């Protein structure tokens, strides 16, 4: 079969979605299928298929599209820069995808609702279309707005044009697909709340390539852990929705109680300067280090005593699964998809979301007991190795594909 995995967003970024696409493509290819990955190159703003030369420069059509939308009787759209930007850009993406070609595939698996909606609008024949929801677009837009307007409520966001726009793309993208694929019960509930019927949704959890993980895990991470200190770790993007600012506040409180710990924050993102500044303000220079991006996260996890997933919203973060597979005691926010990954007191701990005091208490408790850390880490590792393998994810996904072919 010829299969297209397509995202409206940046194919060139690192992160969970690109990992998912690569791993799924690799498995499909080993089973004899031809797989293309389509998306946008952020650096050049071109639509492209990975490994192919042809590219479509969105900038060749964007001026015309923007001019047309600006002159149309669409006052609400024109008054909202975020909606104007995405609407203009997604039509340019549609044109690029159409020129590169989408009608030659036997099945198309969109990785976000905007891609699903775009693809449905340009298809010239009936091709099975699946859409994966790796998160909630509307809620991500909300957290994006909240990073600038901290008191903005969800209801206020949804009643504005930005909120209406993102909600429409989310619903219409799910409606455009033949089946909706999700990894968590949380995101399934979100999609059903929007009006998509349950019979259209399939749940297949993400998986980890355990063998590849263990190979990386076996490598010694070059940075030594300071002697006599327990290591708290976070790995992932430094964006508002990931809640690392909550972790920094919690560490500020923890430092007042004890100093037998350090924290490595591994990753990069737009919030880095803010987090570094706040860390300095809280006097955490000796306790918190920002390591930037690294190549081998499993080897770093080997040094960790505690892993924190402080996200405001996350469907099923790979970073948390990897920490559990590394046998590290994990504590995550009790919000959205994260509680489905942790059995409280058995495979990890949960803290009240967006609550630094609750996180500080949780960290304090874990620091107090090496026995509890070992117990939680071991149970989590066994559970992930038994229930969250890449093979299980592939088999589940292939079963969904088979419903449509």
């Amino acid at each position: 079969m010829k299969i297209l995995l397509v995202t409206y967003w940046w194919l060139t970024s690192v992160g969970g979605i690109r990992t998912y696409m690569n791993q799924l493509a690799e498995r499909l290819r080993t089973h004899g299928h031809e797989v293309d990955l389509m998306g946008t190159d952020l650096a050049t703003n071109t639509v492209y298929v990975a490994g192919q030369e042809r590219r479509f420069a969105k900038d060749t059509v964007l001026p015309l599209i923007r001019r047309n939308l600006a002159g149309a009787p669409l006052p609400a759209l024109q008054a909202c820069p975020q909606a104007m930007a995405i609407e203009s850009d997604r039509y340019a993406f549609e044109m690029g995808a159409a020129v590169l070609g989408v009608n030659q595939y036997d099945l198309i698996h969109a990785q976000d609702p905007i891609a699903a909606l775009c693809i449905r609008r340009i298809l010239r024949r009936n091709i099975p279309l699946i859409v994966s929801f790796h998160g909630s677009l509307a809620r991500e837009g909300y957290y994006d707005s909240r990073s600038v307007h901290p008191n903005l409520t969800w209801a206020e966001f949804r009643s504005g044009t930005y909120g209406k726009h993102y909600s429409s793309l989310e619903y219409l993208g799910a409606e455009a697909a033949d089946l909706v694929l999700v990894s968590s019960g949380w995101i399934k509930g979100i999609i059903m709340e929007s009006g998509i019927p349950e019979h259209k949704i399939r749940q297949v959890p993400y998986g980890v390539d355990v063998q590849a993980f263990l190979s990386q895990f076996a490598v010694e991470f070059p940075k030594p852990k300071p002697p006599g200190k327990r290591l708290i770790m976070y790995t992932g993007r430094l964006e508002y929705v990931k809640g690392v600012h909550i972790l920094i506040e919690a560490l500020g409180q923890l430092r007042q109680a004890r100093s037998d710990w350090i924290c490595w924050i591994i990753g990069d993102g737009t919030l880095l300067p803010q987090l570094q500044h706040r860390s300095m303000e809280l006097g955490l220079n000796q306790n918190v280090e920002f390591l930037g991006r690294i190549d081998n996260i499993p080897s770093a996890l080997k040094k960790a005593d505690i892993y924190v997933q402080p996200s405001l919203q996350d469907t099923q973060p790979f970073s948390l699964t990897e920490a559990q597979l590394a046998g590290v005691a994990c504590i995550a926010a009790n919000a959205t998809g994260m509680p489905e990954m942790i059995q409280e007191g058995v495979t990890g701990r949960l803290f009240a979301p967006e609550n630094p005091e609750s996180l500080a208490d949780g960290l304090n408790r874990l620091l107090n007991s090496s026995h509890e850390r070992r117990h939680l880490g071991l149970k989590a590792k066994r559970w992930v190795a038994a229930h969250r393998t890449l093979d299980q994810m592939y088999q589940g996904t292939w079963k969904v594909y088979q419903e449509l072919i």
Partner: protein
Amino acid sequence: MELKVPSDLYNAWFIYPGGSSGTMVDYFILNTVAENLPEGYLIPDAKVMSWIEG
């Protein structure tokens, strides 16, 4: 490729045609796009606009 003129080309995509004077356009690229888009393709997407504009 026989290059079409604007009125046969991208004006057909736009629900509210506004022309292109003063805007840089590449006719070859736009004709390539036109050859690959399905019949009835329209900008803006009416379904999305009904959510935004009410």
